[in-house]
């Protein structure tokens, strides 16, 4: 198989060996390995490159392909070790921030918000499957793009990413996600509370109450699951005492 396809495949399990010490370091080494095959004829260089590839690294898993490609390119081009290690450190934060903004705060909530709206309107599992399929195609395309841009630009990969459309799209993704999630709130509320006797009144009360609680916990975030479990225990005590 072509080395860069093998690297892409290995990037899909990037975080399997995640630790708090080196974070994705070992995963990066595993993904980079096929790209270092041209160094086979120079065992010392290959060994040194392998040693560097497993050091600390942490970025967004879907954009880590850009780092893998760029680091492999730098190794193949025979860049000095300190420049390669500096590149590794320099890429970690920005690729993490960009990916978090794009995927975790943008595309994932938007995709799940759309699926929630569709399901609350009576759409079945087909819509959920479509969302999953679309998301995975996008995720693979972004990782592939990162790998290619990294291999093409090496040490200059950060400039190449800044010049692409990705940062602008990431900046807009959060707003779009907020709009979709906001639209999902009344739909999902009405759907989930149907059957509780007074769905409209219950929905309005629940969403208004959740808003107040959400605002109250905004500055001092309380864990919503803990709050819910606590309220459930109180409800059971109240039901038990009034039985």
């Amino acid at each position, binding site marked *: 198989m072509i080395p860069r396809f093998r690297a892409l495949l290995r990037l899909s399990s990037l975080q*399997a060996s995640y630790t708090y010490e080196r974070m994705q370091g070992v995963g990066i080494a595993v993904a980079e390995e096929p790209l270092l095959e041209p160094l086979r004829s120079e065992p010392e260089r290959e060994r040194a490159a392998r*040693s560097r590839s497993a050091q600390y690294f942490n970025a967004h898993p879907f954009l880590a392909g850009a780092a893998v490609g760029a680091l492999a390119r730098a190794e193949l081009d025979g860049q000095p070790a300190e420049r390669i290690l500096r590149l590794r450190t320099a890429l970690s934060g920005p690729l993490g921030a960009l990916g978090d903004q794009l995927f975790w705060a943008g595309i994932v909530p938007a995709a799940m918000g759309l699926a929630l709206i569709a399901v609350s309107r009576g759409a079945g599992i087909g819509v959920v499957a479509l969302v999953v399929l679309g998301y995975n195609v996008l995720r693979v395309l972004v990782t592939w793009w990162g790998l290619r841009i990294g291999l093409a630009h090496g040490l200059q990969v950060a400039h190449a990413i800044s010049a692409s459309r990705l940062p602008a799209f990431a900046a807009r993704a959060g707003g779009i996600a907020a709009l979709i999630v906001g639209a999902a709130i009344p739909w999902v509320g009405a759907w989930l509370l*149907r059957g509780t006797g007074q769905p409209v009144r219950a929905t309005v009360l629940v969403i208004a109450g959740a808003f107040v609680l959400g605002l109250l916990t905004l500055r001092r975030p309380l864990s*919503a699951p803990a709050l819910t479990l606590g309220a459930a225990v109180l409800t059971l005590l109240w039901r038990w005492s009034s039985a």
Partner: protein
Amino acid sequence: MSPLPIASLLLWGTIAGLDLASLLQGLFNRPLVTGAVAGVIIGDPGAGLRIGAALELFALDVLPVGASRYPDYGAATVAAVALGAWQPWAAALGPAVLLGLLLAQLGGVTVVAHRRINAWALRRLAPELDRGDPGVANQLHLFGLGTDLLRSALLAGFGLGTVLLLFRSPRFDLSTGQALTVVAVTGGFVALISGALRRAGTARRIAWLAGGILLGVLGLAAL
């Protein structure tokens, strides 16, 4: 109620657990997706979608960033759907979601434990890894994948075992079940709204969120 297809649910819970961080991260761990498939496996897709959607409200508050600790909703959702399927959902939704929340928190603890086990293996092989010995990184990686597979399977097994135990205990009466449903759904919206406001950060994004809610309300009123 039809008997639970335990083996299929166990397999699906394990796949969903792996998807959390170790493999793909392709939305298979999202409660709505996990719940929908679990519902189909059990033969009650409606319950799978509703319970998955309610747990998704909580999951939307989670940012799985780097070293942060986050819950694992995969096996938790499978168990929640197994508990709530084939029952009047207005009363079953609450208890199922509450079980899912508890198991998801437990799942979060196991994620941390898995990372510590990875670190233990890394410390043992660090000299070879730092020397650049061939195959060491792959060995560590496969170890991590294998232990996460085991973690996910054990978590799914624990969740389904809990459901089988709960089936033997007395059920809540209808009004208590309904009250718990209201509590669970309200909690879900607290998570969703406070998470969305926190994440929105800027006034502009809060305006987007408010605009979305207005759109949703208008759409709901129109239909």
